[in-house]
């Protein structure tokens, strides 16, 4: 009897691994420069972090003729990440992009173990677990000024709503998410002070859900907030944000005037509930795709900035709101563009710390 069970299990494992193995990139003849990516928690098409990075890599494939592949670790531990990095290295990949702060310790290991491989770590800086950052000569640590992106989204939201109440739903309470929140609050305050709007945010409506994948919780949290009279929710929460958008779509479709502010990429398409109408007001974007593309290009030009920690912000056009915002009035977009320039020339300084802001 036992043998039969064993056979069933083995067959299932075999099937799963065969199927999982089919998900990766396609193999092409060698010679080409190989650019690899290891995904963070979530899928390659998470409409956020992984997808943004991968889109940049794909653009490099199309424009620069590199060979690309991504691997998805089975878990999110350091060992899982290192295994996939090693797999890429073994397959001859000399350039590996890893999105997410969770890679910090894995890259710390890998950068010394594979000195001839270039690493790009997005949203983090390598350390041994003690937060003493060591960026190896073969590594670039990339950060984004999420607070500036959140600030612009906050200004846009306040100017468009003019009067109302907003909320914030974050994923995990990590720096990238917190900075979005703090920036957003400062943006609201700025608009209230300088443009006579009256858009508030209540402390009880600022929360970190604690995960990036609990869609149900996102929907239920959003429902509670909208029931309490919140008009727009800034969702910086991955899959939790999907739930928020879903609730907003359902309400907008019945004529309620509720909005979501998206995050990371332009989430307008996710909010479409009938042809031409979306519940997503605007999005606080990080141009991750541009960065991953630029890094590949720099590597090919042999100008790879190894050992550096780069910060992408308004000053170097690394963050912002989408170019097209069908839900924003033209005047609002023009006003946000002015604010963008003010941040750029240093007139407005957005704090990336909590200060006396909420959470």
């Amino acid at each position, binding site marked *: 009897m036992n043998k039969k*069970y064993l056979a069933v299990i083995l067959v299932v494992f075999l099937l799963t691994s065969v199927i999982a193995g089919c998900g990766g990139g396609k193999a092409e003849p060698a010679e080409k420069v190989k650019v690899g990516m290891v995904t963070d928690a979530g899928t390659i098409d998470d409409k956020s972090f992984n997808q943004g990075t991968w889109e940049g890599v794909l653009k490099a494939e199309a424009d620069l003729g590199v060979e690309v592949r991504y691997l998805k670790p089975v878990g999110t531990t350091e060992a899982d990440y290192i295994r996939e990095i090693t797999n890429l290295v073994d397959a001859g990949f000399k350039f590996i992009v890893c999105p997410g702060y969770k890679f910090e310790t894995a890259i710390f290991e890998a950068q010394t173990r594979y000195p001839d491989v270039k690493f790009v770590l997005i949203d983090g800086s390598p350390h041994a677990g003690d937060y003493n950052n060591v960026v190896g000569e073969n590594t670039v640590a990339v950060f984004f000024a999420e607070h500036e992106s959140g600030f612009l989204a906050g200004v846009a939201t306040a100017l468009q709503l003019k009067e109302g109440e907003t909320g914030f739903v974050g994923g995990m309470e990590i720096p990238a998410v917190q900075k979005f929140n703090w920036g957003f609050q400062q943006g609201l305050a700025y608009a209230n002070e300088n443009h006579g709007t009256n858009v508030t945010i209540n402390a009880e409506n600022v929360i970190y859900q604690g995960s990036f994948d609990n869609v149900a919780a996102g929907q239920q*949290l959003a429902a509670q907030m909208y029931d309490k009279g919140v008009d727009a929710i800034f969702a910086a929460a991955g899959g939790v944000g999907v*739930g928020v958008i879903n609730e907003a779509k359902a309400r907008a479709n*019945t004529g309620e005037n509720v909005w979501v502010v998206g995050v990371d990429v332009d989430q307008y398409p996710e909010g479409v509930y009938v042809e031409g109408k979306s519940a997503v007001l605007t999005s606080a974007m990080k141009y991750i795709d541009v960065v991953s593309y630029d890094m590949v290009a720099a590597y090919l030009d042999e100008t790879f900035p190894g050992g550096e920690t780069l910060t992408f912000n308004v000053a170097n056009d690394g963050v912002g709101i989408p170019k097209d915002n069908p839900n924003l009035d033209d005047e609002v977009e023009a006003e946000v563009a002015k604010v963008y320039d003010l941040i750029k020339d240093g007139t407005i300084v957005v704090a990336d710390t909590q200060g006396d802001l909420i959470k």
Partner: protein
Amino acid sequence: MLDLIIQIFPYAIAFTIPLLITSLGGLYSERSGVVNIGLEGLMLVGLFTAALVINKLEIIYPGKAIWIGLLAAMVAGALFALLHAFACITLNANQIISGIAINMTATALTVYLARGITGSGNIQIMLGLPRKNVPFLSEIPIIGKMFFTGTYATTWVVLLILLLSWFLLYKMVFGLRLRACGEHPHAADAAGINVYLVRYIAVMISGACAGLGGGIILVTYSGEFNGSVAGLGFLALAALIFGQWKPLGILAATFFFGFASTIANVSQVIPALSSIPGILLKTFPYIFTLIALVFSAKSSQAPKAAGEPYDKGKR
């Protein structure tokens, strides 16, 4: 406190319904003597099928597409459950292992297909079911707010299925036969009942119910297929045991889970609850279930033949 309960009640019901219908599916299967821990995978198959069908049809048939999608989810769930039935009933395989295989295959297969068909591991639908107030009834004070405000049509469908299932299982010949197969299949066989056929039907009904559960998740709160139903299938299984394999029991058990999960989910935005650590609220239903199972284990009402392949020659 009452305001608070009224406020979250409609959402708790919405969260309960997919659990309830899946748990009911498990009830059919186990009552006929086949343990079905593949509920999670069957839900996922339903979720995937519904997402795919609705995604393709919603532009052409807005409104109707959702119901077509839910129907497709039931059919897909039933067909997928056929694998489980074949392994467990015809081949006498171990039911737990077959269930695990169903779960693993469903996860891999749906994500693979989603990628192949849409080019993305996620399938989104534009719009789910609208929430509606029941006319007149929603105006009753308190009760109207709790039960008849902001309800999904699927909620009433599932409650109707539950009611019909109770009638079928306890008041009709087929139900008696089904339960007999789960308690003492040899006796049932001696009475001229085709145990294999009854079990096949029961397992397929269970697949259809779980598939519907997955579809309901899609059209109510999630709005997209993303390769997971977040353990709800296993929760439904726990509710089945907690509810002692009885329709009304699982109604109470799933509602308990649904209500507790909703409270845990929304506690952060409700000032009265936000002082309680979230981890306590989130783990409460599970800890409570463990304790309840400890005390109810002795008087467990589990179908006696559940988990045993039926072997005609065995005594």
